[in-house]
């Protein structure tokens, strides 16, 4: 089994961190293989940022698939750019707070999340990515919820004051994701 995931949005939305937390968890808390591949442009800010995570029971070839099993999309330009890469039957996690346009594919599962709004409600737009991570885990169950939280915790160990906020965000996301899976 191999899962190809692409996470995309604006620079500054924590895209890379989201992908890295996921991949890191696979590395340290499972026996699976995993790759994380950031994609970058010349500009330090602005434009889209995206990264690829491949999780597999076997050896991994290219660290970026051409056909994605899942997409986590945080803004409109990324939706336009990446939607076509999602396989038929794939899942699209969409931050619909920032996206006005219609998703014009019927052959996929669409999970819409008002993530920016949720983050703002939690108290800080910066936890947007943790909300999305929570939703992703809650919905897919690809990794144990606790394992991912451990990763978040360890990585934020030097900014412990931020932990409660992130916990809140993660749990809100998990809840949202679990609930959508229930449907």
């Amino acid at each position: 089994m191999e899962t190809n995931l692409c996470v995309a949005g604006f620079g500054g939305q924590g895209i890379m961190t989201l992908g890295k937390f996921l991949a890191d968890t696979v590395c340290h808390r499972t026996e699976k293989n995993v790759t994380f591949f950031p994609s970058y442009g010349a500009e330090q800010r602005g434009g889209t940022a995206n990264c690829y995570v491949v999780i597999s029971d076997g050896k991994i070839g290219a660290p970026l698939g051409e056909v994605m099993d899942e997409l986590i999309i945080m803004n409109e330009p990324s939706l336009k750019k990446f939607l076509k890469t999602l396989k038929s039957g794939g899942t699209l996690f969409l931050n619909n707070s920032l996206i006005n346009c219609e998703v014009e594919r019927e052959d996929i599962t669409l999970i819409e999340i008002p993530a920016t709004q949720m983050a703002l409600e939690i108290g800080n737009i910066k936890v947007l990515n943790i909300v999305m991570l929570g939703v992703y885990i809650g919905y897919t169950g690809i990794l144990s919820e606790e394992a991912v939280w451990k990763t978040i915790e360890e990585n934020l160990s030097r900014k412990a004051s931020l932990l409660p906020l992130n916990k809140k965000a993660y749990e809100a996301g998990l809840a949202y994701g679990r609930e959508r899976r229930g449907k």
Partner: protein
Amino acid sequence: MAKVEIVTERCKSCGYCIKFCPKEVLAIGKKVNSKGYEFVEAIKPENCNGCAICARMCPDGAIDVYK
């Protein structure tokens, strides 16, 4: 009689115009442009004196000034 117009797609929300406007005309808005920046709005357009300090400070040429 003066007026500023924000070219919202150019604004990157740096805040320079806000900081240097002598009349507190401007503020960061709530909407984001296609690059993801919360662009500036004229919150007190009536105060504008057309000094164009905002526009001159704007790195990205996002402000047009009329007088």
